[in-house]
């Protein structure tokens, strides 16, 4: 692209990408958590 890209463009794409990757992170985290914790749900410890 010509010139310097506006910062909001990178932030917007980054935000969408992070929202997009949440389910994959969830699976990875679930795979390393003990089963009894996994049954309780995502945001419980």
């Amino acid at each position, binding site marked *: 692209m010509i010139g310097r*890209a*506006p910062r909001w*463009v990178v932030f917007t794409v980054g935000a*969408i990408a992070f929202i997009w990757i*949440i389910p994959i992170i969830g699976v990875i985290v679930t795979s390393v958590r003990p089963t009894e914790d996994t049954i309780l749900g995502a*945001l*419980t410890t």
Partner: protein
Amino acid sequence: VGKAATTEPTSQGLLVRDDRRKSVVARGRWLKEAPVAWILIVPVLILFGIAVVFPLFDTIRLSFFDIKGMAPPKYVGFGNYVKLFVDPAFRRTLTTTLVFTIGTTVIAVGVGWVVAMLCAFAPRRTLPFRVMIFSAFGISEAVTGYMWISMLRPDSGGLVNSVIRLFGLPDFAQPWLGDPNTALWALIVAASWGAAGLPLMLCFASVQSIPRSILEAAYMDGARPASIMRHIMAPLSLPGVRVATFITLLNALRAFDVIYVLTGGGPVRSTETVGYFMYRESMTQFKLGYGAAATVILLIAVLIVSVPAIIQRTAGAK
């Protein structure tokens, strides 16, 4: 060439003889190469016949029979098709398929297109983000379904409901997949999540192919990013968007895995598409003829979408 070759000797006799020689050489080369071409293509044709053509024609044949379990098949002509169109469950299935297909295509292609245009402003800095979004496309639909089951769990363990409660909105938390009013939309979101990677890449390639001089001219004229996106990138990337729409539309029309895993067509058959209806009738109700008729209807729908698109895409090909 043929007509020129049979004419009497003229002042251009040399040229005519040359044309005839070229024609004979070309024909000889074709005859020499034809067996090799056939040897190369026959295995593919046999496999294609076994894997595609035979099942296709057998399904069409089955759709004219009433098959119930082990009883001998009874020829019913177009009876299965008539029965399908008076079946309110199948009519509802058609509506569900239409909503699911359009919803998934609009969200997946919309997100992919917008993100592709944004990425074009900073291709290098957004590379990791493109990889993050595209990675969802590499996951199988069945795994996508299991991921979204844990995201949409009705209890406080579900991530979506947990986040909603975290923001102090407990009334909005609900059983997304258990309510007939929200199940289809939850399914559309899950399917779009998995499908958006391909439109993103296709649209990004299309945006990248826009001539640099046009973008330079806009930049020199002081156009803002939103204007460049709206007036330059969006119209000039339309060929890529059309291909992305076509592929996403076909995939959504044939969707099965994600529906099977997430809702199983429920609750109260509110998320049953034609593909799932076909499976249910054939494999769980053992009405093979009836299920085959539904398959043929789905095939016709796929052909209605794909044939004009293929003709349009290959019109200029030689």
